[in-house]
């Protein structure tokens, strides 16, 4: 329990990055860890690049994850995954929603959205990356809004967070009517890794 673990969450403003980070934090506190979570908000309610640094262990000092030291990257969008992959440690894992959100900047500069970003990621990270269409999986369960919880299922299994703590955290953070669907999404997510 003494070793400090780091999870970097990344995505685009409006995708629910910060809410997912809250659920993970709740579960980790329930597991008895010291938790620190750093994010920057203020600018950009929608559409900007967003990330959240989450660190846990017996005693955490710095809330910030250093480059090359994240145990896991939890990403909601593929371009942001590439942008922030420098934070991952050697042989760290990535859980990525295979979704592209094209920023308007590509139409007014020479830098274009990378072609086949999912293939590029797969080539570099091989077995360490779990890349899936969380929206499709969530839709099949009944609601695209469960996508983030599908991903949380995968992450909790990789990080070894107990189902009890995760389920409790999800129940506390989602609208009461959607608890059942979200828990189903969570279990589905665990099957993916």
């Amino acid at each position, binding site marked *: 329990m003494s070793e400090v673990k780091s999870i970097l969450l990344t995505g685009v403003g409006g995708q629910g990055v910060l809410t997912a980070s809250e659920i993970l934090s709740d579960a980790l506190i329930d597991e008895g860890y010291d938790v620190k979570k750093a*994010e920057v908000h203020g*600018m*950009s309610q929608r*559409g900007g690049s967003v990330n959240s640094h989450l660190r846990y262990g017996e005693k955490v000092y710095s809330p910030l994850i250093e480059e090359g030291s994240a145990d896991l990257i939890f990403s909601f969008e593929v371009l942001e995954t*590439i942008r922030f992959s420098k934070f991952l440690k050697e042989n760290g894992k990535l859980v990525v929603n295979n979704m592209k959100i094209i920023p308007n900047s590509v139409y007014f500069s020479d830098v274009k959205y990378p072609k086949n970003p999912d293939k590029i990621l797969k080539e570099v990270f091989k077995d360490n990356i779990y890349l899936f269409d969380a929206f499709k999986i969530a839709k099949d369960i009944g609601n695209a809004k469960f996508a983030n919880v599908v991903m949380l299922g995968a992450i909790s299994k990789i990080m070894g967070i107990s189902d009890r703590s995760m389920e409790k955290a999800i129940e506390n953070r989602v609208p009461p009517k959607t608890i059942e669907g979200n828990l189903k999404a969570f279990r589905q997510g665990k099957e993916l890794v």
Partner: protein
Amino acid sequence: MKKLLSGNEAVARGFYEAGGHVATAYPGTPSTEILENMPQYGEDVYSQWSPNEKVALEVGIGSSFGGARTLVAMKHVGVNVAADPLLTLTYSGVKGGFVLVSSDDPGMHSSQNEQDNRFYAKFAKMPLLEPSDSQEAKDFVARALKISEEYDTPVMLRLTTRISHTKTLVELKEREEHNDLLGFEKNPPKYVMVPANGRKRHPIVEERTKKLKDLAENIDINKAEYNDKSIGIITSSIAYQYVKEVFPEASVLKLGMAFPFPINKVKEFAEKVEKLYVVEELEPFMEEMIKAEGIEVTGKDIIPRCGELNPKIIKNAVNKNKNEIKENKFEDVKTPIRPPVLCPGCPHRGVFYTLNKLNTVVTGDIGCYTLGVQKPLDAMDSTIAMGASIGVNIGLEKALGKEFSRKSVAVIGDSTFLHSGTTGLMDAVYNKGTNTIIILDNRITAMTGRQDNPSTGYTLMEEETKEVDFEKLAKAIGVERVKIVDSYDLNELKEVISNEIDKEEVSVIITKRPCMLIRRREYDIKTYRVDEDKCINCGLCLKVGCPAVIKNDDETKAKIVESMCTGCSVCAQVCPQDAIKLVK
């Protein structure tokens, strides 16, 4: 009970627990959530947004003179606005405990500069407390109030973005009432700062600073943690956490109260360690005071003065490592930038699109609309400080003549106009300017996360209230030409703006549409879709800079992401082929 709280949430909680009575602020990142978290304690704590930081601080002064425990919060640059009353409040002193929370923004995540407000504590002669996590943020509020009452002084609680916006575990306690000081007693020698009284107060302030220095020497939040004595590091705030992360074996002197500066404690620490460092974010605030005593210390020679610190910067600086360049796994992959942008349906979009088309010089201001500087809108030419758009516009006209104002406008948001734009408008009218001023009225203080202001009809504590009428206000100031425009109507915007710019007198144009993200607004969201048969891929719709408007996969047609579209119709209005249609 332990709870994961941001530093800002912890400050609000700390004020509630410490028996706080009155809290005021003007929103500003990274300080905003302090007051946003106050109404939950509304049965015990009165809280409000003021129109600007100066008024917030003055309301705080009155509250403290009435014996109430008082908190006033603002971002670092907000203290500049409030500096006038602050630097005399430190002469008058307080009655009820007074804590000024200054939330600084090293790294300028959401600010126009990265000034170090610790110097304000020294300048104003007030004690400075700096927490290093949320638990301390909460505890230090109670400390600050107690010190304030005991020493008859306001106290600065200085946070930074990483303290304000980092969540760490906090032990919650019950509220403790402190009502014994409530009530106003006349005391002109203390509260009326005419020169004769000010002259008597100044020596009292100097005497107080000496006593506070004794406190800083002995207070338990200035603490030496001795370990390996070959390295000793003096540090404070978030830098303490970084130092502990990268040098767990080093001896550390953590200063929770760095002004007045506990120089004897520093000397004692310096004598016990071999090599002494001072690690602080931004300016060499502590370093200068250490060196003034002739103590040898390494600080800003190796620790950067610009930007925020992180563990790696500190580790490399102390170990004299070069910043190793990590192998880039995606060498051949370029990543396009994804900066903050105006949201889909943002009412500012059409205004900036029009200003760009009219090729105007735009003196800008501070709010979401500052994003109008970015491509493709590309329609902002100056941004300095809250309210500055109008003064700068007047200055350009005075320097370059009335002709200049025939191609120039000032833009300012509703909340920013009320914060400090009205005086600029008076200047324009009074000094016979011919400026055109656009008030971008989106019915909220949007940039900081949608806070109410005197024009929205609601208070912080969710009560209905009166609304400022911008049209009447402008007319009362003496503006004869006041026009109101629908922000989504591009034709009307173009016509009115071109027309008003041409007039050789002051014009005020109020562009009206609520922010898309206002909680109370009733949503009637329509969406638009591209008719691919009609689209000729000219790219004009992309030039409105909306996140919902992109190209299709093979980049042969425009495409609207329907899940993001809010139906503002601005892209449809610019389409020359009439190819963007409302989804029925």
